């Protein structure tokens, strides 16, 4: 199979972008979850 260095670079970049997106979405989800939990706890009277 002929795989040129250019195609390999493109594939590497694509996977790095995918990983960056995955990390970004995970951290965003984490932050949103903490936000939602805080709202729930305030409503339930747990938090100040």
């Amino acid at each position, binding site marked *: 199979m002929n795989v040129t260095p250019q195609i*390999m670079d493109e594939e590497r970049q694509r996977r790095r972008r995918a990983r960056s997106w995955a990390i970004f979405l995970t951290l965003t989800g984490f932050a949103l979850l903490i936000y939602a939990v805080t709202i729930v706890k305030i409503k339930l009277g747990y938090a100040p």
Partner: protein
Amino acid sequence: MQTTTPSLLIPDTCLLPSEGARVRDYIELLKPRVMSLVVFSGLVGLVVAPVPMHPLLGFVTILCIALSAGGCGAINMWYDRDIDAVMTRTQNRPLPQGRVAPDAALEFGGTLIFGAVALMWLAIGGLAAILLAFAAAFYVFVYTMGLKRRTPQNIVIGGAAGAFPPVIAWAAATGHIGWPAVALFLIIFFWTPPHFWALALYRNEDYRRAGVPMLPVVKGARRTKIEMLAYTLILLPLSLAPYFMGFGGALYLAGALLLGALFLFCAIRVCFDQTHKAAKQMFAYSILYLTLLLSLLLVEHLARLFHGGLA
């Protein structure tokens, strides 16, 4: 005709290990089958707790237990990559196959555990987070790095890590550790040896080749079968504890007796079987046993909840 996008043209072997890793490889690092039982036992701990929890907080508790269990699985695969490569059962895992770089697996596992404990602390509370961290540390440092390659009692002591989820979930719901949670802990703790040794009996050669001192490797099949029977005999009365402690009903009692009798039958059959057939069946049944036993508790408590009369 096949499309010619770069990702379809490039075999993973052309890339560095961590670059060739795909989502399914990382999912495999989490040991999804182990995780599902851990999550389920945690869910039961949450449901049987006498304090109802807000659904979102309950979801976060289960999520944290799942993430931590997954992280432990990833670190376990990182540490055991040398013996995984030797064993038939594990040689297709992402690390021995070079689909995930060892450092990436370690970072992935560590991040998951840290994130799970942090989320538990922030969202639920200190006690549940401490228990979660303790269970993860116990699995990684005591079982994986300490016991697994040193003693045939590895899965007996290490089994405690897998028994923690109901205790963690109970602590998340109530803020303390209750006796019912301890009873669930003990049921899972005493279920673990016959479950694992059934696997070790028919994977004996695998473990011997990898140099893992599982009980059948060190003491032989006969001694293992006797110990499996002994643990089963301890497990059976323990499995009735939920009924006598008041958090399991008549349905649970009847189910536990029936399932326990079958478990005992399997253990006795293993003792008299010279082939691996009975051990394989016992391993499969042990998973079904714990799942059904915990399901009975879950069904009873959910039924009480829906009928508005949680005792």
